């Protein structure tokens, strides 16, 4: 098998990695807002429950969470899951895990907003929804962008954890190729692809940061 063939197989698996990456962001970025608002809720019960969820998600390994999601239907509810559930389980685990991390970042961003912004909006008659989406959130986005960047970069590499329940993403395939072909080249190519992906993301984030740099407070 030549390098071209290996590269081709890895790129195919890379599409799966990127699918996990994109779907996680698609789910966790908006869900994080909801969870952050729950954490900041005046209801101590709601805030407590959400706090516990965040604590568990951040305090246990993502790989363990993935296995838990994968096995719960069978061991807890006795439901037989088909092979298609593997990918679903990975996605559920990634989304609930990353939602917790994003929620914490949003929460710190929201809490760093000066009280005066809320009061200015209140006296102008904005509803709390309008205040949050028009006044607070856009400013929070700018504040949290660097922290979000770190998480997104981590997510690129975390997609390789799907290997543990047998999803054919890029790390799974490269490991199989290394074992079968008795060469380190697949690892080298995979590493390069992960790295370039992160470089592209860093570049994109810098562009966004620059775009939001038109004001400071």
């Amino acid at each position, binding site marked *: 098998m030549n390098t071209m063939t290996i590269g081709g197989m890895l790129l195919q698996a890379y599409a799966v990695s990127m699918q996990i990456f994109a779907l996680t962001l698609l789910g966790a970025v908006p869900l994080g807002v909801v969870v952050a608002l729950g954490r900041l809720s005046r209801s101590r019960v709601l805030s407590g429950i959400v706090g516990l969820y965040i604590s568990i998600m951040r305090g246990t390994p993502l790989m363990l969470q993935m296995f838990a999601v994968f096995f719960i239907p069978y061991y807890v509810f006795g439901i037989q899951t088909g092979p298609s559930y593997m990918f679903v389980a990975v996605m559920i685990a990634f989304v609930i895990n990353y939602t917790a991390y994003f929620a914490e970042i949003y929460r710190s961003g929201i809490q760093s907003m000066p009280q005066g912004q809320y009061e200015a909006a209140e006296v102008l008659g904005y509803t709390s929804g*309008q205040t949050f989406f028009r006044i607070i959130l856009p*400013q929070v986005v700018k504040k949290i962008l660097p922290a979000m960047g770190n998480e997104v970069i981590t997510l690129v590499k975390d997609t390789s954890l799907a290997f543990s329940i047998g999803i054919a993403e890029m790390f799974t395939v490269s490991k199989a190729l290394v074992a079968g072909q008795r060469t380190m080249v697949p690892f080298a190519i995979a590493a390069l692809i992960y790295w370039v992906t992160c470089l592209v993301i860093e570049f994109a984030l810098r562009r966004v940061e620059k775009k939001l740099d038109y*004001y400071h*407070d």
Partner: protein
Amino acid sequence: MTSKTTAPAVSLEGASKSFGEKSVLSDVSLSISAGEVVSIIGSSGAGKSTILRCLTLLETLDAGRLAYGDLTVCENDATGRARYDRAARTEAHMRFGIVFQDYNLFPHYSVLRNVTDAPVTVQRRDPSEVEAEARELLRRLDLLEHADKVPCELSGGQQQRVAIARALAMRPSVMFFDEATSALDPKLTNDMHALIRELARDGMAVGIVTHEMGFARMVSDRICLLHDGRIIESGTPEEVIDHPKNELTREFLANVAD
């Protein structure tokens, strides 16, 4: 001309407010009519900012009545506690504007957007009509050339004028200023004086909270002196400053004289 029989633009009667055990306002009554400029003065801790926060609905009164013109926002129920009317509260927000001490502009919006956003979003007015009106306000306040800048590109005095434009764009009948001149140099203080008098001439009721006696004397029709949460002296600047009736007023004036 407004007739003498209409309700004052804003009135507060028998207002009391405590934070925990600490009484901050007790039995305060105050009203401002259209075209009138009233300053609330007093040392720090006297309750000036609490009055302003109650008037602008950022705090609720424990007891008392608050009305904007014919709109009663809250009055005492049978147990003597202030009861707020939800709908009136919402409507009252359209009747006053406030210029905060540190302006609290929206930093991510352009100057123009700071002025137009609330009238369009909250009052649901026609965007092009609002923009035309906003540009006229900015022109009057000498800000038109800065319309597309963001607040952080402006000086403190300019930012304060944006805050004034933002409040005026809501077409309020009462304007409040929190420490209007504390950040201004003498020239800008004079401009502020002229602007406030102009607003009053156009029929606006103006309430100013300040600890600067000189400015209060120059700009006000009436001055209320607040001490320990009570209004202990009230009258024209001459009456309050030159011929105070209350011993505590004389003490306060002696302290701020230097």
